[in-house]
C-alpha cells in the first residue's frame, strides 16, 4: 500500500472503514496501481479478502505485492485470501464441461445470462468460518476489473446486478465489506459505469494528463467522496497528480511535481 495515498484518503490499516463501495476507474491511463494498493492495504489490515482477478495472473499480483510488503501465497495458505484467477480458469471452463456451474460459466455460453454463479462464489468465499480459527476483520471483495466482464459478453444490467448484490447481501448479512471494482474509463458502456458511480461511496479516478505524456508526472488522481446524507458533508472532491515508482507512488498537488519545482 502507498502511505501517501492513505493520508489522502484519511485511512490506515487499523482504521479500515466498513460497509462502503469504492469504485476505481481509469481513463487514458493505467489505473492498476490502485488495485495493488487496496489489495495490500486490506491484507495488512487483517481483513478477509476475496479477489476476483480477471485481467492478470496470480503471479503478477504476487510479485508486485511482495514489493509492497505482502505475500499473496502466504495469505492464501492461511486462508486470508481467496483468489479467483480468471485467465487460468477460463481455459478450464472453455475446454472442459463443468459438472456444476462455474463462476465464469458465461465464457462457454453464447448468451451470457446473469452473474449469479459468480456472486455465489463470492458469498461462499466471504462467509464467516466458525471453526475457531483466527477471526479476520471485515470481509473485503476486490474485482479487477468489471469492464472485462462487459467485453466478454455479459450484459451491463447483469454486471450492475452483481455489484448490487455484492454490496447488499454480503454487506448486510456479514455486515461489513468494502468492494472495489475497477474498470477503465469510457470504453465500457457509459451507463454501467455511471450507475456504479451512483452506488459508490468513494470514487478514485486515474486520468492521463490533458497535456500528454510526461516522464515525471504519470497522471492525475481525482478522489470523490459521495455523501448520501443531507447533514453530512456534500460530495468532496480532491485532485492530485502522481508518479509511479518501483515500489511506491508519490502524490503531489497539481503542478507541484518535484521534477518541476
Amino acid at each position, binding site marked *: 500500500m502507498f502511505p501517501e495515498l492513505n493520508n489522502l484518503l484519511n485511512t490506515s490499516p487499523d482504521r479500515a472503514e466498513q460497509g462502503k463501495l469504492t469504485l476505481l476507474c481509469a481513463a487514458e491511463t493505467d489505473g492498476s496501481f490502485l488495485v495493488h494498493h487496496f489489495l495490500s492495504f486490506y491484507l495488512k489490515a487483517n481483513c478477509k479478502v476475496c479477489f476476483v482477478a480477471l485481467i492478470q495472473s496470480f503471479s503478477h499480483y504476487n510479485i508486485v505485492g511482495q514489493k509492497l510488503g505482502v505475500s499473496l501465497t502466504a495469505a492464501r495458505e492461511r486462508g486470508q485470501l481467496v483468489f479467483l484467477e480468471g485467465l487460468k480458469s477460463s*481455459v478450464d471452463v472453455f475446454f472442459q464441461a463443468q459438472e456444476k456451474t462455474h463462476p465464469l460459466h458465461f465464457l462457454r455460453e453464447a448468451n451470457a445470462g446473469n452473474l449469479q454463479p459468480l456472486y455465489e462464489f463470492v458469498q461462499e468465499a466471504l462467509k464467516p468460518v466458525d471453526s475457531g480459527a483466527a477471526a479476520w476483520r471485515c470481509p473485503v471483495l476486490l474485482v479487477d476489473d468489471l469492464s472485462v466482464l462487459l*467485453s466478454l459478453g455479459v450484459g451491463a444490467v447483469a454486471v450492475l446486478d452483481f455489484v448490487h448484490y455484492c454490496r447488499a447481501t454480503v454487506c448486510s448479512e456479514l455486515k461489513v465489506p468494502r468492494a472495489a471494482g475497477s474498470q477503465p474509463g469510457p470504453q465500457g458502456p457509459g451507463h454501467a459505469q455511471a450507475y456504479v458511480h451512483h452506488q459508490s461511496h468513494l470514487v478514485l479516478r486515474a486520468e492521463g494528463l490533458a497535456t500528454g505524456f510526461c516522464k515525471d508526472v504519470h497522471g492525475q488522481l481525482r478522489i470523490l467522496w459521495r455523501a448520501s446524507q443531507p447533514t453530512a458533508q456534500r460530495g468532496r472532491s480532491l485532485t492530485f497528480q502522481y508518479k509511479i515508482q518501483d515500489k511506491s507512488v508519490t502524490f503531489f498537488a497539481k503542478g507541484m511535481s518535484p521534477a518541476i519545482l
Partner: protein
Amino acid sequence: MMAFEQNPKDWYSILGADPSANVSDLKQKYQRLILMYHPDKQSADVPAGSAEECIRKFIEVDQAWKILGNEETKKEYDLQRREEDKYNIYSPLLFKYFLAEGTISGHMLLIASAKEDPANILQPTDVFELLTSSSLTPGYAALLQFIRNIIYEEGFDGSNPQKKQKNILRLGIQNLGSPLWGDDICCTEDCDNSHGLTKFLYVLRGLLRTSLSVCVITMPTHLIQNKAVIARVTHLADTVIGLESFIGSERETNPLYKDYHGLIHIRQIPRLNNLICDESDVKDLAFKLKRKLFTIEVRELLCFSLQSRGK
C-alpha cells in the same frame, strides 16, 4: 482507350485533391482541370508533344471523375486504397520478422492464417519445426482447440516432457477479425457475434499465461466497423502497436515525412510483474523499408533495424 495499368492510379492526386475532400470540392477541381486540358481549348500553336500530353491528362481527369464522382465507386476505391496500402505491405513483414527471429532461436513456430497458406509465409526447413493450421475450418473455437492441443502435446505447459529443453512456442496469427475467420465484426457495426473475438483473445491469453508461449497477432482494425470493439481488444492485449503507412495518404507527399514510409504508434505496453512499465521517452517513431532493410527510427536518429534474409 486506356491501357490497363498494373499499378492502380491515385485518382485524388490526379484531380489535385485531398482524399478527405467532399464531392463538391472534387467536382470543382474536375471542372477546372477539364477546361484546362480540353483539346478544343488549347491554342493552335503548341508543340505536338505537349498536345498529346494534354489529351492524356484530359482522359485521366475524366477517368478520375468517373470514379470519384460516383458515390459507390468512390467508396470502393477508398476501401481498396486503405486495405492494400496500410496493412498488407508492412504488417506481414513484421509478422515474418517475429517468426524468423524464432527460427534463429530454435523455437517452435505455429502459424495460423485464414487468408493464405501458412507455408507461403515461411518455408518449413529442417532447422525448425513448423506447424500450420491452414487446414482448419475458420472459427475461433477450432483454432483455440488446436493451439491447446499443441501446447499440451509438446509439453509447453509442463504436462508432457518437452522434446527440446526450455523451448518456447511462438504463435503467429494473421488477419484476426477478418471475415475469413467467420467473424463479422468487419462487415457490420451491429454484429451478432460481437464478443466472439474478445472471448477468443481472453482464453488465448489464459493459454499463453499458463505455458511457455508468446503470440503475435495482426488485425485489420481499420476494417472493424464498431470502434468499441477495438477498445475492448486493446484492453485485453498486453502490447499493442499500430502501423500507419503513408501510401495513398497526404503524408506521402509531405516533405516532413519524405524519408519514411510510415509511422509506428505504440498504443499499449504491458506492466507485467511491476508497478511501472518500461515506457520510453520517445513516442515519435517512424519506419522505412529500403531493399531488404526495415528500419525504425526516431525521426533523425537511428534506433535499430531488422534485416530480412531470403523470404
